[in-house]
């Protein structure tokens, strides 16, 4: 189950990064970057 959840986190992170490169509003890009941080930390099993 852990790897299923990590897979979901990875998919979410990829989706966020993909959308960041399509989003023209900098404030929304900033929101996305903030959301990315805990996802990356969980993906790396740091936090």
């Amino acid at each position, binding site marked *: 189950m852990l790897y299923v959840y990590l897979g979901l986190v990875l998919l979410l992170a990829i989706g966020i990064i993909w959308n960041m490169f399509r989003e023209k509003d*900098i404030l929304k890009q900033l929101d996305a*970057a903030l959301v990315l941080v805990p996802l990356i930390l969980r993906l790396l099993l740091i936090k």
Partner: protein
Amino acid sequence: MQIHTKHYRISAAILIALAAVVCVLLSTQFLSMREEEPIYPGEGVTQTRMLSDWYPAIRGTAGDTEVYVLQGAADGDSMLVLGGTHPNEPSGLLSAVMLIENAKMETGTLYIIPRTNNSAFTCTDPQEGTPMRFHISTPEGERWFRFGSRATNPIHQWPDPEIYVHASSGQRLSGSETRNINRSYPGRTDGNFTESISYAITQLIQQEGVDITIDLHEASPEYPTINAVVAHEDAMELASWALLGMQMEGMDIALEPSPKNLHGLTHRELGDYTDTLAVLMETANASQGRLRGKTDERLIVEGKDKFYVRAAQYGRLYVPFDENGHPLSERVARHTTGILQFAQAYNDLGLGTIQITGMPTFVEMQTDLGPYLIPKAKN
């Protein structure tokens, strides 16, 4: 408000790079909690083993943890002290460290696990705003100890179920309790990570024939089971006798029976599933409470909080609370004195022989822990 830019791909790349920098900076902080505080075994320690010696399946995992063995020259009975079951309850860890660094056994064997839930020491509880470490001053420098989480680090056990079903009783609790080791006893081999740790501890008790098990805890001042001993029914006579000794040392302490319908705790399951006399001790910890002010090192070590003083004046607490608070030295003194009194009571009742020496008195510890925690060169 929207701020559009035609260079949105460049801004995305820059923000992703910034997010990566933030991740690196945060990682150094979070990973610092994996560094273990130094413990300096005293002359009384005859062996340092790992919990996986009794259950190899946890070897190499974050659940494996040191077990300090103090074996007396004379054969006798045995006691297990569990510190750090909840690493946000620092007097448990510190009391165990006090024993490891000062106690000697004349008769019998003392097993001490200072970091029972080793994984829980590697993180703090989210949204509690607690510091990661606290410091104790000694005459020869400062010692640091981690202030961890109540539960197993979620990176070691994830995801939580919606509902946690205790395997042997069928008890249903909130899913987050699946990482609370004190709801997982007696543990099982085919359970989750936390249950494997509690299974290892149960194996230690069964394989070594541990006669008394004492689990050290703290609770918030508004919690009813506080400054108390909770005893399995088999241990009630022992606990009653020990309490008399504690009260004669000047400790105001209560005795509660282990509820038969609350499962997964040491005082219930270890008493039911092994032959050990299982008890749990609680002291008052303002840094855990819901009424507390700023949660800093000072609150953890000095135990003073003006909001709890006010709450005491309103009669809302289960423990006296004045401007002096309940410092960590007092809480450690209560735990270690309780442990010594349990050993004495065991002897006095003719149940067997466990003789522990080398520990300071209740008054000495309550005054200052520093002289008994002097950092020494590691053996």
